[in-house]
């Protein structure tokens, strides 16, 4: 067995360093791919590091409390055929890859792109799979169908920072910014789920994507579901994370307070409602949301969407239609969700529908317990 490195992952476009909070492994442990091995905190959020390689832990290089650049060597894996000198030599010659190196941009590094839909620009973050063999030639072959990520109300493509990389190992992944959100045009004509689903359909048309795996969060899940009902043949699989408008009511205070928050102080308790662990809401996370909310047109866009039925309706779908969906449907709920909670969603039963409850997470299980959610998402592809 060769000597393998575990390095600091890059979560999202802006991450350039992270602090090692805690190791979950010790020298001598055998670890598997996907195992959570450490906790790292960036200025934006804390998250679990998953092992990208398997093997026996020989050395932990990074120390708890240490600030580490992206790509830095955290630990070394190797079996007993490698002696300590070989490990020392590996560590001594290890080079941190420059994350801004253009040579790395093509593989796995996200690209910010934009698609024109009439008078609207829809921005999206696209990643291609690491293995060149997996890059789809027409996007249609089995296993080469792209994954589309649709964020929730007030979110953006960066909400998927812990998921896009994992899904991107095997698939082309596109995280879009809905109208009124992220880098997309801030003007929203029709803020209803049906209206926004039409935008997503148009977006897929524009990118000539005939079939796709749709993954949506909250309002984005309702949009994904609507797309599946509009054109079931186009949607190969459907994963709904804390879906809105399928039976469990949306906390309307959250929507109102999110819209009205003008200052960091007002916004903090609102954002804390999203998570099971309130400490995840860092000053930088609040600042990012404030910067978004200050942009011209965002206030109106958020209002148009909220007024189009996000808080007034409990369910926007026809039970029988959903039960009749043919593609695999995975529904993921956060255990301590304070935004969409309750025991509703009776309509979400059917032959192809599987429900999951994710521990230690609120309304953002894909951020708070990304490991568990990624596993469920991968299974459904």
């Amino acid at each position, binding site marked *: 067995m060769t000597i393998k490195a575990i390095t600091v992952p890059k979560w999202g476009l802006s991450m350039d360093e992270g602090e090692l909070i805690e190791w979950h492994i010790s020298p001598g442990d055998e670890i598997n791919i996907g195992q959570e091995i450490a906790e790292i905190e960036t200025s934006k959020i804390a998250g679990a590091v998953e092992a990208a390689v398997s093997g026996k832990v020989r050395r932990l290089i990074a120390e708890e409390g240490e600030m580490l650049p992206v790509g830095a060597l955290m630990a070394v894996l190797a079996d007993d055929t490698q002696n300590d000198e070989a490990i020392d030599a590996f560590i001594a010659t290890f080079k941190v890859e420059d994350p801004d190196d253009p040579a790395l941009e093509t593989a796995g590094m996200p690209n910010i792109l934009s698609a024109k839909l009439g008078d609207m620009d829809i921005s999206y973050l696209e990643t291609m799979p690491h293995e060149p063999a997996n890059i789809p030639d027409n996007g249609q072959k089995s296993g080469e169908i792209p994954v589309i990520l649709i964020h929730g109300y007030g979110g953006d493509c960066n909400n998927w920072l812990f998921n896009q990389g994992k899904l991107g190992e095997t698939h082309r992944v596109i995280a879009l910014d809905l109208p009124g959100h992220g880098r997309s045009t*801030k003007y929203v004509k029709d803020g209803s789920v049906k209206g926004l689903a039409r935008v997503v359909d148009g977006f897929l048309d524009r990118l000539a994507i005939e079939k796709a795996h749709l993954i949506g969060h909250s309002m984005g899940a309702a949009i994904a579901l609507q797309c599946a009902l509009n054109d079931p043949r186009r949607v190969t699989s459907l994963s709904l994370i804390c879906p809105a408008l399928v039976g469990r009511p949306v906390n309307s205070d959250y929507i109102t307070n999110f819209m009205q928050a*003008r*200052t*960091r*102080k007002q916004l903090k308790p609102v954002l804390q409602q999203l998570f099971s662990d309130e400490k995840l809401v860092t*000053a930088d996370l609040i600042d990012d949301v404030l*910067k978004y909310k*200050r*942009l*011209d*047109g965002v206030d109106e866009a958020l209002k148009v969407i909220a007024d189009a039925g996000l808080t007034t309706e409990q369910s926007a779908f026809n039970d029988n239609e959903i039960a009749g969906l043919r593609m695999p449907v995975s529904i993921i709920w956060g255990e301590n969700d304070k935004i969409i909670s309750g025991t509703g969603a009776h309509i979400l039963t059917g032959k192809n529908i599987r429900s999951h409850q994710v521990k230690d997470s609120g309304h953002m299980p894909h951020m708070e317990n990304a490991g568990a959610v990624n596993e469920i998402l991968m299974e459904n592809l």
Partner: protein
Amino acid sequence: MTQKTIREALNDALRQEMRRDNNVIILGEDVAGGHGGTGVIDAYGGPLGVTKGLIGEFGANRVIDTPITESAIMGAAAGAAATGLRPIAELMFVDFMGVCFDQIFNQAAKFRYMFGGKTRTPMVIRTTIGAGMRTAAQHSQCLYHMFTSVPGLKCVMPSNAYDAKGLLIEAIRDDDPVIFFENKLLYDHACDVPDESYAIPFGEANVVREGHDITIVAFSRMVHIAEEAAKTLASEGISVEVIDPRTTSPLDEETILESVEKTGRLVVVDESAARCGMAADIAGLVAEKGFSSLKGPIIQITPPHTPVPFSPPLEDAFIPSAATVVAGVHRLLK
């Protein structure tokens, strides 16, 4: 996101607001350059290049080169504002404001009040502040404290390019006179700035860095000095919270008081004045409303009470530095 300098961010803000609202005009000395001459129009683009390119897009009716008469620039802007335009008047150096105090202090600042709320004065005065350019005592002052003390004026001093764009857009949309202070040494300072328009509300401080041992309140360029000091102090195990109020009028008292309640110690870094400046003002605020949480004296880091020296070594010694801030913190913790 695109990295932009403060100069570029300000140009962005002016251009986008002029596109959005035809009532927005710019006037000042050499804001285009070349008016009335036979040479190149837009030769200058403002003394520091902030208004470069605007006359090409908006024409000489909206980007007006004025004669060198500061009082007339301010008087014309105040009158234009009272009649419905949204003028942005530029005055190269805050040091020259002395000759237009009547227009600013006694006219523009008072219109709304004296006319019983029946008129508005949506004017912005952009001007430069700060020592360090080797431009001697008459071109180096940092006089925002004087304007802060006049009711009816709003005072804004961005420390970074993101804030510069959002605060200038807010200033242009505001219905009262706003004095916008730009530090001469910060124009090339760059950070991520959205291409889209956005406004940052006045009276909301930015917590630049979170900490729990000491609160440092700093203004404009001094925010960077405070951050530098905070980094040094962090290596000594001292955790510093740095607050940039962004605007001195209105002032976000709450953020300052809450921070001092947490840390119990306050240092104010202010380039304006050793006497009756913003440092004294913030110290007074915390002494009165946050006294019970203080664990030690309030430290004011300001220049000495002298004119800005022309001698380069003396000018460097005049401006508060990270080393003087660190020394001040050590004094407080002793």
